[in-house]
């Protein structure tokens, strides 16, 4: 029996944390609807008819290049999630299921990737990308982000794959499935909740990243939205209305993706609980 008081405490603490975490986001969204003067004079006041001004959104939607930046961000994020999940799950499956000579060493090598931040290799990455003629392409970003996220994805997914009973794979082998079919028709459906977790972990840092877009795709219409917003930040004048509006709209796609994955996540959790 859970005591009502402790339940209340738990919710109070969680609520407090939620307020704290949401505060800057709410501030950004609120002020994005306000006139410039109101943003600076009364930053904490919600948008009211007296100070309402959608000029920021008007500028953002007028600027045709921003639409491309959104598309770039979405392409990069979705591409990264896709390749991270595909290669991550395949590698995790291979490392857990098959015994081969360098298995342990390979797993260890991959786990080093979790510990060493990829940004340490930025210079080498720039050189490599330049050599490959991939500067100012989304491909470069997707490749780098996939590499960045693979180690953790493999680590998480192989834990889940190891929990799938061996009998299931052997039953599939008796049923005459090829190894690829076992992977796509048995393993992938069963690790869906884990993949949703990995997708969420992958998605948010990639969407928000400024570092690699700045280094690898800073121009040529291949900027991501986080980079694209920078155009409103000038050395002398900053168009705060536009910056806030752009940031507010940037939340929407990532929120949408999150809702999609979290539904998978919850479905996975509850389906596992019944067993």
């Amino acid at each position, binding site marked *: 029996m859970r005591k009502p008081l402790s339940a209340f405490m738990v919710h109070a603490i969680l609520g407090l944390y939620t307020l704290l975490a949401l505060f800057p986001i709410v501030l950004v969204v609120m002020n994005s609807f306000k006139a410039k003067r109101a943003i600076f004079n009364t930053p904490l006041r919600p948008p009211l008819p007296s100070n309402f001004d959608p000029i920021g959104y008007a500028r953002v939607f007028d600027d045709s290049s921003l639409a491309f930046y959104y598309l770039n961000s979405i392409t990069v994020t979705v591409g990264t999630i896709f390749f991270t999940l595909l290669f991550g799950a395949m590698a995790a499956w291979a490392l857990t299921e098959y015994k081969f000579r360098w298995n342990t060493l390979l797993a260890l090598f991959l786990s080093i990737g979790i510990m060493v931040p990829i940004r340490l290799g930025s210079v080498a990455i720039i050189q490599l990308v330049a050599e490959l003629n991939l500067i100012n392409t989304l491909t470069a970003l997707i490749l780098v982000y996939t590499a960045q996220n693979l180690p953790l994805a493999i680590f998480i997914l192989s834990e889940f794959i190891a929990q799938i009973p061996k*009998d299931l794979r052997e*039953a599939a*082998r*008796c049923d005459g499935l090829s190894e690829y079919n076992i992977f796509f028709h048995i393993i992938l459906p069963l690790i869906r909740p884990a993949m949703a977790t990995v997708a969420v972990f992958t998605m948010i840092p990639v969407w928000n990243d400024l570092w690699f877009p700045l280094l690898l795709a800073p121009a040529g219409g291949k900027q991501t939205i986080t980079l694209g917003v920078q155009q409103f930040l000038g050395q002398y004048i900053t168009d705060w209305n536009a910056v806030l509006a752009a940031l507010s709209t940037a939340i929407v796609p990532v929120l949408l993706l999150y809702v999609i994955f979290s539904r998978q996540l919850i479905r996975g959790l509850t389906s596992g609980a019944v067993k």
Partner: protein
Amino acid sequence: MAEVRIENLKKSFGAVEVLKDIDLHVEDGSFVVLVGPSGCGKSTLLRSIAGLEPVTDGTITIGGRKVNDLAPAQREIAMVFQSYALYPHMDVAANMGFGLKFAGTPKAEIEARVGEAARILQLEPLLKRRPRELSGGQRQRVAIGRAIVRKPQVFLFDEPLSNLDAALRINTRVEIAKLHKLLAATIVYVTHDQVEAMTLADKIVVMNHGRIEQQGKPLELYYKPANLFVAGFIGSPAMNFFPGTVTPDGIDLGADGMLAVPLPAAGLGCKVTLGIRPEHMRIAGDEGGGPRLAAVVELVERLGETGYVHLRLPSGTVAIAEIRGDTGLRTGDHAAVALDPAHLHLFGPDGRRIS
């Protein structure tokens, strides 16, 4: 259906030999049960037949075709796993038809075969359910159904009943026996439960330490166990054993006395082990002849019409005798136990049977 022939089969995990020179012939349409204690290699043998475990040496032929290097699916076998191994994300019908789908069987035929298997196993109302919505017995039937729809040459069962409760186990055992008759199937069945082995098998193969100790008809193994291991393994409660020495007067059991039995083929002075099943021991009064032993009653177990008396002999050896009806025996009573000379088994120093 087809026969299975296994010749000189060897299997090692590293330096550990888990199967040593296995020779086994499973006749077409017969029900062969592999039985033995944990770690005796019976499951490994089954998995070798299935192709899930590569073998080190020897040959396996199914229906006259050498299958050593074939993948499980190409061996035309179907396996029923102890854990059932149903695909959790598919309904019952999809589970049963899954293998056929990948073999490129036309949809109409898959449906027909799944329907047929469902009818035989009374799974029709459950076809649209997921495995997690089924009881243990139902899951077991789905697992068998999945094997049936593939129309395999050989069915392989790996301890299929061990996850069921006692009542269901007896039911399912009967179902499997009926199914065997109905399908005229060749079945290789692994269990550690010797009751399952006795009731289901045309041929029992008793394994121990990676070797076949004896193979034969259930009653043959029961009445003529080839060695001490089989004698002790088959039958419940287990056979009683008494160590002794062959003398001109019979067999000297040391502190337990002299048993006047016909002299065995073994020479005088030879160390032997005398074996007798509980049902061939009788708590005797003073009347009647034949070999007998004196003992103290340690415990009486009454199961109803029959019961078991646990006895301690003067040497400290413990024995179990079967009783019928209410004998009035109590713990601490002294009793004379008569042994049926027709059912005495003698084993030599190497554990082999002496006729």
